């Protein structure tokens, strides 16, 4: 049965290569780690089987999520208990928890060094944590209420979406100093780096828009309208996918023109979103529907709807 499922997945990837040059050649993600804020837990979802296989108690109203470079650890930020929690993804158990700041929310991992970065919503700071001890090793002041955090693939640059300053801060990972800021739309929440285009995108909750940033020039390139109170952005193929919390929808935009191609109806309060590395699907956590949903990037329709815990947010990179 396992083999059969694996073959089906492999077949699906091959098929999408045939149909359109969207597939990346990368292996598809096998699992999702979804923070359930109201349920105080972390759902482990087997993506091939399309079902939740574990729900790990976490506590502290978990929201932010990131994975170590080898996928062996999931890091969860819990703003209520003011902790970062490390989960062993193989054993599906909590292996470490440590107090971090006053309102840890956004979290990301340096893909090269493994350092864990945590944004503090109330202290307006970004912390660097040792990935094993979870102790703070460096800290820097950002704009007001930093929320989303993203790191470039070379591990050299960190971005924070400073929600209440309407800007992105650019932080040098080596010196851990802010080297610049770029203005965005109103109340940017999620920030996503697009390595292929050398860009970053913010989802701006109050202006119902997405801002496009050029990372090399450090400029604001464009602002595109999306749906109601957008949360985060993902790129798959030549399209961008933006979750609209109050729109029960995901806006699909052309990554070159930023025109809306389609608005896909999904569950209620779609929030965390990440593209499968294989390019064939985009996964969305729906806070109100308690689901993790897959949008097929070919058909632009929902192709799977998986029950998870209560109040899923999955704010960050949650696919392994």
């Amino acid at each position, binding site marked *: 049965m396992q083999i059969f499922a694996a073959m089906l997945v492999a077949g699906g990837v091959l098929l999408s290569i045939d149909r359109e040059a969207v597939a990346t050649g990368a292996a598809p993600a096998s699992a999702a780690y979804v923070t359930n804020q*109201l349920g105080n837990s972390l759902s482990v979802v087997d993506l091939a089987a399309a079902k939740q296989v574990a729900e790990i108690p976490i506590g502290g109203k978990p929201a932010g999520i990131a994975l170590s470079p080898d996928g062996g650890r999931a890091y969860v930020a819990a703003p209520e208990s003011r902790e970062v929690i490390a989960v062993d993804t193989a054993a599906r158990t909590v292996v470490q928890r440590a107090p971090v700041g006053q*309102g840890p929310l956004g979290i990301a991992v340096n893909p090269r060094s493994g350092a864990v970065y945590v944004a503090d919503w*109330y202290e307006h700071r970004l912390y660097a944590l040792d990935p094993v001890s979870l102790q703070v090793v460096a800290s820097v002041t950002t704009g007001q209420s930093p929320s989303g955090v993203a790191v470039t693939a070379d591990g050299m640059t960190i971005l924070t979406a400073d929600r*209440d300053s309407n800007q992105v801060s650019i932080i040098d990972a080596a010196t851990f100093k802010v080297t610049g800021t770029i203005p965005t739309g109103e109340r940017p929440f999620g920030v996503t780096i697009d390595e292929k285009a050398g860009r970053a995108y913010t989802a701006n*909750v*109050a202006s119902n828009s997405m801002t496009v940033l050029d990372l090399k020039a450090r400029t604001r390139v464009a602002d595109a309208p999306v749906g*109601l109170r957008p949360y985060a952005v993902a790129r798959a193929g030549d399209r961008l996918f933006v979750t609209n919390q109050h729109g029960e929808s995901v806006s699909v935009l052309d990554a070159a023109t930023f025109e809306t191609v389609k608005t896909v109806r999904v569950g209620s309060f779609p929030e965390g979103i990440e593209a499968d590395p294989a390019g064939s699907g985009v996964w969305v956590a729906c806070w109100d529907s308690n689901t993790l949903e897959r949008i097929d990037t070919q058909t632009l329709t929902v192709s799977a709807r998986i029950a998870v815990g209560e109040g899923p947010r999955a704010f960050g990179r949650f696919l392994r």
Partner: protein
Amino acid sequence: MFGLVRALIALSVLLPFTAAEAHGPSRQKVVDTIEINAPADKVWAVVSNYKDFTWHPDIASSEATDGMEPEKTTRKLTFKKGGVVTDKLMAYDPDRKYISFMTAEVDLKMLPVSGYSSYFTVSPAGASTKLEWKGAFYRGYVNNNPPPELSDKAAVDAVTVFQRTGLEALKAKIENGS
């Protein structure tokens, strides 16, 4: 120390309005439904009338701007207790019998919440009608370390009562034909 805490609580009472955008870290949810012995169209006619929210027993008067345009039409709700809450129409879909609105400025003495969005869905249930009122909101205290009266729990408790009171009054109003 207790003096300081008390002073901070006093300060929060002196500043009863929440900023329209800042909020706490966890969104809360309250979903309530009621069955009304009337056709869905009749229920929808009352629920969809954004201009008039006085069917809720806590509300003394409601004044809306013109139109029924999501993200544009706004409303000022004066509570019987004297405070004011403003909100904005967010969605209006007669085909689905679905309407939603979201608070902008909130007098925390009226409701200890911020960014409170309400979603009403009217659906036929046999000869009667099911009305769902879903609320998604943050606590009233936008900063860290909320005083008890502005905590997540206080927000959930208040919204639970607010929605239940409203649904029961709406049922009574419609079924009594007033």
